[in-house]
């Protein structure tokens, strides 16, 4: 039987607001432990939440980007559980009335992924378990808590199980990440924890539309790692069904520090969070004017730009440019489109230069001359494209002896100095061409245009 994977994602992103979701503590990644706290985010008795208006706006903006409906009335709930990272004993989150619902997100391959919802909530504090084993609270000698993160605004995006391969899931995540970064609502950096995601995976016979038991994959630290994890999980499930077994609903916790470690498995316990509409907050009723104004602020999104670029390039190249944040530079750099795109995605990408620092015209000149410059010199020039006042001209002039008039005497000199090799060549040992090229290069310190040298040598040797 042929099996088809069914994949859904739950993505959490930290919003890039100045202050926390329900108090006015500053948000600063890497600040000294517990230096960004106040009675509200430490849940002192009697303190009350006051929602961050900017976080609400950012969520609506994201809702528009995901083509969601922004609801007329949204409600915050309390989600209860006891854990030291949760100061109030409950998290304020949106439950059955999220702010954004029923969206869709188009991928470069033309497919669309349903967005079930995007809702706003607060992040928990950070626990550090000391002693014991495995960095878990069970068995730890003591647990230290850093409340700086407690109350960070967090958007949770839940997709429909519309993704059909690990590769597609990876591309979805890349495009979504690029989208939130460009909207300016999040850094979405996995290393900083400002982007986290869980993956739900199940499989079914191809052509069927049933939904079978799914497993949840947690703690993956990169998109590539996730793709591999999904791939492995699909194979595992196929193995189980094909040997007559049943997949069990469980959670697979990966070790973010060790990709090759097998994930820890745990049964999904039916937790009772005792949801309660948050009585300290009035329902959130976003004004229609605000919602429309934010719709108007939406920039051209990565998805749309991929579609546009795919007309002149192929989809993969277009997607690569956009999700790597290089497409705006691409559009400014003059020259043959595919060549520019290839250089940007390959040699230039390897330099790590910030696209914003680059003079597109100069880069265009450099790319145009790439075949006339030795590889090493070209790379060196690309690396310098981010420097202030970079001029391609300098590398072209310094690096290349381009003029036939300049090279001709050198070529003649080399031939005159090696008469026996010239005879051998003319006698049929055409492999000696490389030897002559090498000699010319030696004479010029590697600065001769190899193409031109080749042409000149062939011509002279023919005679």
């Amino acid at each position, binding site marked *: 039987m042929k099996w088809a994977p069914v994949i859904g994602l739950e993505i959490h992103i930290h919003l890039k607001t100045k202050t926390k979701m329900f108090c006015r503590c500053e948000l600063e990644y890497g600040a000294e432990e517990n230096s960004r706290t106040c009675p509200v985010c430490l849940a002192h008795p009697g303190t009350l939440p006051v929602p961050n208006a900017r976080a609400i706006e950012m969520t609506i903006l994201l809702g528009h980007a995901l083509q969601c409906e922004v609801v007329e009335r949204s409600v915050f709930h309390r989600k209860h559980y006891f854990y030291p990272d949760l100061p109030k*004993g409950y998290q304020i989150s949106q439950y059955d009335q999220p702010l954004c619902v029923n969206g869709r997100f188009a991928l470069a391959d033309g497919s669309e992924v349903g967005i079930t919802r995007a809702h706003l909530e607060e992040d928990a504090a950070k626990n550090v378990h000391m002693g014991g084993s495995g960095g878990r609270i069970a068995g730890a000698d003591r647990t230290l808590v850093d409340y700086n993160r407690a109350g960070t605004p967090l958007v949770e995006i839940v997709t429909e199980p519309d993704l059909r391969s690990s590769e597609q899931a990876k591309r979805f995540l890349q495009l979504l990440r690029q989208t939130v970064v460009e909207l300016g609502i999040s850094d979405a950096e996995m290393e900083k924890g400002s982007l986290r995601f869980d993956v739900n995976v199940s499989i079914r016979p191809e052509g069927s539309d049933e939904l079978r038991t799914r497993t949840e994959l947690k703690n993956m630290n990169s998109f590539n790692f996730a793709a591999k994890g999904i791939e492995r999980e699909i194979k595992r499930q196929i193995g189980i069904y094909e040997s007559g077994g049943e997949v069990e609903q469980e959670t697979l916790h990966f070790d973010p520090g060790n990709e090759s470690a097998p994930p820890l498995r745990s049964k999904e316990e039916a937790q009772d969070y005792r949801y309660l509409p948050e009585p300290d907050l009035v329902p959130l009723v976003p004004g229609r004017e605000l919602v429309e104004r934010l719709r108007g602020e939406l920039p051209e999104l990565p998805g749309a730009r991929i579609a546009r670029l795919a007309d002149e390039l192929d989809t993969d190249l277009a997607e690569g440019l956009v999700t790597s944040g290089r497409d705006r530079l691409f559009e400014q750099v003059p020259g043959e489109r595919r060549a520019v795109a290839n250089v940007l995605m390959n040699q230039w990408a390897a330099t790590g230069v910030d696209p914003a620092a680059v003079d597109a015209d100069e880069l265009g000149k450099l790319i145009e001359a790439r075949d006339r410059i030795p590889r090493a010199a070209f790379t060196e020039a690309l690396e310098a494209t981010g420097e202030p006042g970079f001029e391609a001209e300098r590398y072209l002039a310094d690096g290349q002896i381009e003029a036939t008039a300049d090279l001709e005497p050198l070529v003649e000199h080399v031939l005159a100095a090696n008469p026996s090799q010239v005879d051998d060549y003319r006698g049929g040992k055409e492999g000696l061409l490389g030897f002559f090229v090498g000699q010319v290069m030696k004479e010029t310190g590697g600065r001769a245009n190899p193409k031109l040298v080749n042409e000149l040598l062939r011509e002279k040797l023919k005679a």
Partner: protein
Amino acid sequence: MTDTLRLTAEEAMGLIERSEASGAELHRAYLDAIGERDGELHAYLTTVEAAEGAGVPIALKDVISTKGVETTAGSKILAGYKPVFDSTVAACCKEAGLPLIGKTNLDEFAMGSSTENSAYGPTRNPWDPERVPGGSSGGSAAAVAGGLAPWALGSDTGGSIKQPAALCGLVGLRPTYGTVSRYGIVAFASSLDQVGPLTKTVRDAAFLYRIIAGRDPLDSTTVDLPEPVELPETEDLKGLRIGVPRELNEAEGIEPGVSEAVQRAIELCRELGAEVGETTLPRSVEFGMPCYYLIAPSEASSNLARYDGVRYGPRSGKGDIREMYMQTRDEGFGDEPKRRIMLGTYALSAGYYDAFYGQAQKVRTVIRDEFAAALEQFDVLISPTSPTVAFPLGAKTENPLAMYLSDVLAIPPNMAGLPGLSIPCGLSEGLPVGLQLIGPQFSENLLFRTGHALERAIGFDFVPERLR
């Protein structure tokens, strides 16, 4: 020497204005009175020796966070907890120059109707120390009635201002939900909690309400007052339509002496020029109480989750995190909070939510509509505040349901978010009887006017007989 038993807050303002006494001198006089009588009454949990402010001193219920002054909510789980910030109402009092006399006793986390649930021992009624002052703001009520404070703030979730005011012969206002900030008030049931004054006169209550009311950016559920607070002057009730809801006046368990005193007050309304008629609130009275005992414990179980021994308050338990939570909470909470946490946790459980909390919220809408209909016909509704006068200590501690019934008349308007003013309307067997005045949302000025006119006509002496 100041007669702290007789002095009203308004009179104290007069003394200060005429430089006959300073705020500090008054503060001292009340501390002296506390030294004299609080051994018997136990109205205070904490007193403040040196307080700032040139105005009339004030006592605050111990759920009101006061910066640097221990705030326990009557619970061991907050023993030694000193807030690092002032609640908005405490800040309002400071800004108005009211020196803090101290923090008053209460039922633990404001859960109770007699102040016997305090982890720090009960408060006694100044009219008869063998009896309870009511609750949960019993400490504030006993302090004012016993001459240990000219006025005080309490909090009212299900009658916790109105009922002790009634049992101690005082004026108590439970304001419209959303008019007084809850920021810094140790939360019991967030959708019902409201801070309000306990005073000797209606005008004092209006003065104090004026100081604490208004929108607070730190409390999203507050609103701007639609009109400024007016001090009542009028001494008649001409043009007012006063409704007597049958069920609130004929409920089972209302003592005959209470009914008689209330009947006399209703007669007085007529004499003062009001138009009096009967009305009915069948569902509000039948369902108000059960509905309250689903909503309040549900919210309480959530609000009390933060007391886990991690960040403040005592911590117990030597084992793992779970053991620490369990032991800290087992030792820290008394029986009543535990009872309500269990009730509330159950009511919010998956599968029960719709049947309990969800259903109670729907019933609340029914109650709101029923009151709204009655208040279309009448300007003010009138009833006893409490079915009984102050009862002896220990009389109801073994029977939580009997204790809960003490608030059966005070709860229904609370469920509708309405303001209620309790004023003393006479004595029954030598103990004060409270009269409850209920108006539409934001009708505090109307309630003050009605209460003031009745107060003048009744001529109740708020100094307990045995202390005169």
